[in-house]
């Protein structure tokens, strides 16, 4: 039993558990799951605190904020139980020096996070909300995931090709230099 919590999970086991958790959430909460509202609340809270130049009174906790806090606690528990908790400042070694890697991590992190959240807001729901929608055969959710996968593969391939061309031409130049 303990191995279930501390061991590795196959993608199929994770998928089945996700499915039951989504249905259980709909039964217990009778609401679409997700936490766009707490993100909006935290964002407005930071904006207000910057405006008045001091920490504003903390907003009230609703079930979506509790869900967000729960995700943090659950993930922390799983990482500790599975011995996967590691302090990492950079995603992975990419051959660059630490300063360049840090710059790239900050730039891609902020730009990527911004675009992901903007996309989800335009789609009208959080990622988990859309996933739950897909299980309910919602056409909007399926359109979103089809678009996400298609554009994701196209954009990633384009970036990879451009990066490879960049590094090839760079090598060429260094060869000429020799």
């Amino acid at each position: 039993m303990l191995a279930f919590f501390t061991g590795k999970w196959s993608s199929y086991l994770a998928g089945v558990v996700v499915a039951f958790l989504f249905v259980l959430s709909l039964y217990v909460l009778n609401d679409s799951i997700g936490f766009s509202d707490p993100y909006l609340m935290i964002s407005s809270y930071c904006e207000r605190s910057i405006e008045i130049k001091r920490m504003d009174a903390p907003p009230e906790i609703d079930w979506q904020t509790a869900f967000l806090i729960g995700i943090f606690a659950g993930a922390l528990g799983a990482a500790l139980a599975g011995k996967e908790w590691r302090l990492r400042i950079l995603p992975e070694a990419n051959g660059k020096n630490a300063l360049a890697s840090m710059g790239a991590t900050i730039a891609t992190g902020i730009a990527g996070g911004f675009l992901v959240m903007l996309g989800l807001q335009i789609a009208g729901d959080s990622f988990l909300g859309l996933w739950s929608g897909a299980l309910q055969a919602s056409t909007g959710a399926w359109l979103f995931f089809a678009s996400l996968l298609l554009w994701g593969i196209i954009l990633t391939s384009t970036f990879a090709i451009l990066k490879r061309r960049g590094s090839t031409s760079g090598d060429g130049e260094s060869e000429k230099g020799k």
Partner: protein
Amino acid sequence: MHPLNLDGVWKIVAGGVLGAAFGFLIVKSKIAWRKTLMDQLFLKNTRFMRTFLASVAVGTIVFYFFNKWGLVDFHARPTFFWGAVGGGLLAAAGLTLCGQIPSSTIAAIASGRLYALWVLVGMLLAMPVANAFSRWFADSIGKWRDPLNCQPTIESAFPNGGVFWIAGIALAACLFLEFATPDKEEE
């Protein structure tokens, strides 16, 4: 039979417990790691897609019967074709850069991956912009005609077993990925 529909403090407690279960699952399924989503987009490792398809194969059937018995109600946002397609495009561009979704960002930070804090900053910065952008979007692109004339659910478009078709196709796709893609590597 009807949904439990908790209220007040119990709803907050239930939200916390369900959040903890999802947080645990996000780490266990490896969706929390940037690498999982990046590898999915590069088609190097289809772990995320297999998790998603397995959840669809089981979840659509479970939801269909629970909904039929009155235990759960339909709770998904109304379909807006251009919002879903445009949102998918923007989210894909973001995923290509950072490899994180909102829930995985929180889970990654909790697991010590502090680089995800920058993603969280980006997401928080997007909220006020999204509000302004949504208004512009609703006044312009929001008025465009839906080219597919989408129904709210696939089931309403295909009433004769549409849900079972979704589950069957998801299962077949899952099996295809299992046997056709070379990835089985763990982190």
